[in-house]
C-alpha cells in the first residue's frame, strides 16, 4: 500500500512536467511575447519601446530556453522557461498585471471559494444520493418514471439559467438574500445561501440519474437475490446490501473532485461577486492576465492529481476487496 502511494506520487511528477510543457507551449511558443504585448497595450500605444518596456516589466525579455549571454547555470535559469515554468513547482507564481503577488492572492481567495464549494459539494452529494436512492427503491413505478423525466429535463437546462433565474427570483423578486457580495466571518452566510442552493439544484439532474443507474446495476446482481432468499425485507435488502455496494463507486467517483473544490466555481462566484478563486480566474481571463491563468492551470492540475491519489486511497478504505488484497 505504502509503496503504491509512493509510486503514484512519483507518477504525478512527469504529469506535472507535461502540464507545464503544454502551458508553456501555449503561452510562449504559439505566440511570441511581442504578440502578447501588442494585444495588452492596445493598437494605439504600440511602439517598439512600449513593447520592450512591457516585456521587461514582466521578465519576458529573456530568451525562451537558452540564454547564450549568461554564464554557467544562468544560461538555463535566466530564461523564460525557467523563470515562468520551473518556478511554478516551488509555488512561485510571479505577479499579476495589477502587480499583486499571485500566490498570496490565491491563498486569500481560497477561503471564500471553499465556503461555497464545500457546502455545495456535501449538500449536493447528500441530496442527489438520497433522490437516486428513492428512485431506485421505487424502481419501475410512476414515481421512478417521472423522476427520471424530471432529471433529464433538469440536466437539459443551462447552468447559467439556474444562476440568473435563481438570482432574479430569490434576490430581486422575493428579496430574501442580497443579490451579490461577500461578508466577513459569520456574516458571510447570507451571501452563501443562494449560491449554494443554486449549485445544489443545478447538479440534481445529471447526478441523480447517474447514481440511480449505479443503484439499479447493483439491484440486478446475484447477491441481492441471495439476500431476498434469506427472507429479509426489501428495505433491509436495499439499505444494507445494495446501498453499501453502490456507495463504493459513488464515493470513490466523487473523491477526485474534492481537492479541486479549492478552485471554486467560475460562474457562481462571478455572478454573486464572491471574491474566490473562480472569480479571480474569470477576471484574469477577461483581462487577459496570462500570469494568473498560467498559475491557475498549474494549481488546478496539482489539485486534480491530488484528487486521483485520494481516489486510490479511498478505494482501499471503502472496498474490502482492495483493502485486503
Amino acid at each position, binding site marked *: 500500500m505504502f509503496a503504491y502511494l509512493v509510486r503514484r506520487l512519483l507518477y504525478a511528477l512527469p504529469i506535472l512536467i507535461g502540464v507545464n510543457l503544454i502551458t508553456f507551449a501555449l503561452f510562449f511558443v504559439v505566440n511570441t511575447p511581442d504578440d502578447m504585448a*501588442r494585444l495588452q497595450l492596445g493598437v494605439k500605444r504600440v511602439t517598439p519601446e512600449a513593447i520592450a518596456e512591457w516585456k521587461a516589466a514582466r521578465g519576458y525579455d529573456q530568451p525562451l530556453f537558452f540564454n547564450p549571454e549568461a554564464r554557467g547555470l544562468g544560461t538555463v535559469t535566466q530564461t523564460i522557461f525557467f523563470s515562468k515554468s520551473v518556478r511554478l513547482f516551488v509555488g512561485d507564481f510571479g505577479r499579476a498585471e495589477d502587480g499583486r503577488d499571485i500566490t498570496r492572492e490565491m491563498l486569500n481567495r481560497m477561503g471564500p471559494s471553499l465556503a461555497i464549494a464545500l457546502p455545495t459539494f456535501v449538500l449536493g452529494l447528500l441530496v442527489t444520493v438520497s433522490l437516486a436512492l428513492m428512485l431506485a427503491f421505487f424502481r419501475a413505478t410512476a414515481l421512478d418514471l417521472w423522476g427520471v423525466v424530471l432529471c433529464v429535463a433538469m440536466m437539459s437546462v443551462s*447552468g447559467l439559467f439556474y444562476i440568473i433565474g435563481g438570482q432574479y427570483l430569490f434576490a430581486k423578486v422575493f428579496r430574501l438574500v442580497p443579490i451579490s457580495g461577500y461578508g466577513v466571518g459569520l456574516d458571510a452566510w447570507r451571501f452563501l445561501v443562494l449560491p449554494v442552493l443554486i449549485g445544489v439544484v443545478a447538479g440534481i439532474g445529471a447526478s441523480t440519474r447517474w447514481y440511480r443507474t449505479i443503484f439499479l446495476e447493483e439491484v440486478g446482481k446475484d447477491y441481492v437475490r441471495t439476500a431476498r432468499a434469506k427472507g429479509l425485507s426489501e428495505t433491509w435488502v436495499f439499505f444494507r446490501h445494495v446501498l453499501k455496494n453502490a456507495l463504493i463507486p459513488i464515493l470513490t467517483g466523487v473523491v477526485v473532485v474534492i481537492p479541486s473544490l479549492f*478552485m471554486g466555481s467560475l*460562474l457562481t462566484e462571478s455572478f454573486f461577486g464572491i471574491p474566490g478563486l473562480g472569480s479571480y*480566474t474569470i477576471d484574469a481571463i*477577461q483581462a487577459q492576465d496570462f500570469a494568473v491563468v498560467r498559475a491557475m492551470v498549474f494549481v488546478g492540475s496539482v489539485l486534480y492529481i491530488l484528487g486521483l491519489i485520494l481516489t486510490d486511497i479511498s478505494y482501499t478504505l471503502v472496498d474490502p476487496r482492495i483493502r485486503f488484497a
Partner: protein
Amino acid sequence: MNGVQIVFLWSDALIWLLLAAGLGLVLLVRRSPPLRAAWGKVAASRSGMGAATVLLAFVLVGWLDSLHYRPALPAAEGAEIRYAIEVRSLLDALADPLRSRTEKTYSAPLATHAYVKESTEHPGGGVTRAFPPLLHGGAHLAGAYDKHADDVAWRVAVGVLAAVLLWLPIAVWVAARQGGWGKVWRGETATAWHAVLLTLGAILLVLGPVFSLAGGYHVFGTDKVGQDVLYQVLKSVRTALIIGLVTTLVMLPLAVLLGIVAGYFRGWADDLIQYVYTVLNSIPSVLLIAAAVLMLQVLIDGHPEWFATAAERADLRLLALCFILGMTSWTGLCRLLRGETLKLRELEYIQAAQAFGVGSGRIISRHILPNVMHIVIIALVMDFSSLVLAEAVLSYVGIGVDPSMISFGTMINNARMELGREPVVWWSLAAAFAAMFILVLAANLFADAVRDAFDPRTA
C-alpha cells in the same frame, strides 16, 4: 437580386462533410443487419423519435443557415458586378424581414410601442415623454392600435390553420403507407410514427402562429440595439449545432485511434497514451480552453490579413473553438475505448483471428472497431448536449465564439444585465434559454434512446 456569389465557409464545408458522413452511415446501416436492428430499436422508441423530429427541425434551420453567399451590390449598367462585404445565408434571405426590420432599442414581444419612454420635442415647443410607436412592429396597423389584440388573434388563427393544413397531408400520407390510422395511433408500427406525427404537429402548431405573427410583429421582442430576438434565436441554432457536431468530429478520430491502439497493443504505446490523456485531463478543462482561446485570440488579432470578411474570421474562430473543445474532450472517449478494447482483445474471436496470423491492422478494423462502434455512437450523441451547454458558458466567460457571431452564449452574455434593469427586460434571456432547453432536451432524449438501443447491458 441580380446575382450572387456563393461563399463556402470552412464550417459549411464541415457541415457538408457531416451530411455526407450521415448519409454514409445510413448506407452502412442499411447493409448491416446488426446495425439495422439497433437503429430499429431507436426507431421504435417513442421519446427517441419525438426527440429526433425536434432535432431534425433544428438541423433544417442550421442547414439553411449554412448556404452562404454574398449578394451583388446594385451596380450601374455594364459596370463590373461587385459583391457585398457582408456574407448572408439562405436563412437570412428567407427571414430577411426579421433581419432587416430593426428597431431603435428594446421592445417587448408583440409590442407596437417601444419599451422605454422617449422624449420628443414638439415643434410648438415643449417636450413630452411617451412610448414612441415602433418602426416595424405593428406598423401595418397604421396607427389603429386598438385593433392590436384582434390582429394578433387573427394572425394566430391563420398560423394554426396553416399548421393543420400542412400537417394533415403528411399524417394521411404516413398513415396510408403504414397500414391505416388505427395502426399508427395505437403505436403498432415498427417505427414510432405516432410520436413523430405528434411532435411534428406540436412543432407546426408553435411555428405556424410564430411565423404568421412574425410578419407584423417582433414575436420575441427586440434587444438593446433593436434587433429581432427571434432572428437571433434562429441564427444561434447553427452555432450550437456546429459546436455540438464538429467538435465530436474533430475528436473522434483521435479518441478512436488512440483508445484502440492503447488497448490493443498495450505496453509502451498504452503507457504513452495514458500519460498524454492524464496530462490533458489534469488541466481543468475551462482553464485549458481559456488558455488556448486567449492564445488563439492573440494569433487572430495579430494576423488580420488572413481573413477576407468578418464572417470568415468569426467562422474560423468558431472552428478553432471546436478544435480546442475537441482537444480537451477526447480523453473521456479514449479511456472508454481503451477499456473496451482491453476486454475485447481477450475475447476468443480475436484470438481465433490471431491464430490465423491476421495482421493487427486488420484485426482492429474488422474485429475491434465494429464492436466498439456502439460506444462511439453513444458518446457522440451524449456529448452533443453537453457541448451545446458548454458553448453558452464559454461565450459568457468570454472564451467562446467571436462576439460578432450570434449564439445562445452571446445572446445570454449580451442580456446578462437585463434582469437587473427596471423595468425588467426578460425576453432575450427567456428566448435563448428556452430554445437551448428544447434543443438540449431533445438531444438528451435522443441520446437516451440511442444508448438504450446500443448498450449491450440494457439490450
